């Protein structure tokens, strides 16, 4: 199976790798994993007082598609509001990275990571979904 140019680019030059302080009230941390392949993904967002995601970081242990998917979403998340962030769907990631059917679960993982990070941020602010 050949990876697309975009996947290779994100894999070789991942954007926004790292971590944010998970105790920070402005930070939401999402942790997800895929048992079938053992992939683990951590996605963090930092939301400013205007409700805009001003920073996003990730760390993923997994295949190239999982790394590319999480790298891509950190780029997309920056500058978005929480509402806009929830609009990011796995199909957008699939289309952007030209992921083959066997790698669709990687994009699902990235979408779950966004949801999980937002849920964590919201729970810190007394919002329960």
């Amino acid at each position, binding site marked *: 199976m050949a990876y697309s140019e975009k996947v290779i680019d994100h894999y070789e030059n991942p954007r926004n790798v790292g971590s944010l302080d998970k105790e920070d009230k402005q930070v939401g941390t999402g942790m997800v994993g895929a048992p079938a392949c053992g992939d*683990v993904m951590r996605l963090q967002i930092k939301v400013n007082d205007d409700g805009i995601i001003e920073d996003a970081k990730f760390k993923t242990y997994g295949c190239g598609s999982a790394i590319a998917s999480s790298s891509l979403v950190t780029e997309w998340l920056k500058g978005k509001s929480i509402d806009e962030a929830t609009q990011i769907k796995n199909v957008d990631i699939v289309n952007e990275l030209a992921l083959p059917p066997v790698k669709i679960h990687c994009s699902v993982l990235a979408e779950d990571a966004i949801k999980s990070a937002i849920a964590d941020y919201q729970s810190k602010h007394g919002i329960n979904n």
Partner: protein
Amino acid sequence: MVDEYAFENPPQSPFFKGGSFPNFFQLFNLPLHYAIDLNQLADRYRELQRQVHPDRFVRADVQAQERAIELSSQANEAYKILKNPVSRAIHLMECLNESIQLEGKKLSPDFLMKQMEWHEKIETWSSLNESQRDQLRRLLQQEGENYIGQLTAAFAQRPIDKISIEKWINEWQFIEKLRTDLPD
């Protein structure tokens, strides 16, 4: 060993009936049981491979030859699945007609955080000395053995503890991945 925990095998093996679903326990004449004797499994595997060895079928008709080859490759597959404690648990659930969710399952953040830490530790492998590497190997080994114990206990309950089994199988796959990620 008394098999008080063994499940009842279905009366007829779909395997030999050409059915689509093989029961690998039955193929090796083993009780439908999570805690299997690995030596016995290896013996039965070798015995089956002897029986279906192509050399024994040189004078047989084409159909019998093909059937022998098919059985031989199925025996390989079956042996691989039963030998591995994770795939054995998954297969046993299939044999018991119990469905488990292996994808899209929600895992606890604490568990995932721990996986991250394992990976981070493994990432520093090249800077670890031999005793630190040994320790890491041992810890992961222990972790795997914990899961064997948990699964054995969950399968020994009547009715079986399906929720725990699903959880242990899902978690254990991460540990297996970590162990295969360990450099030699």
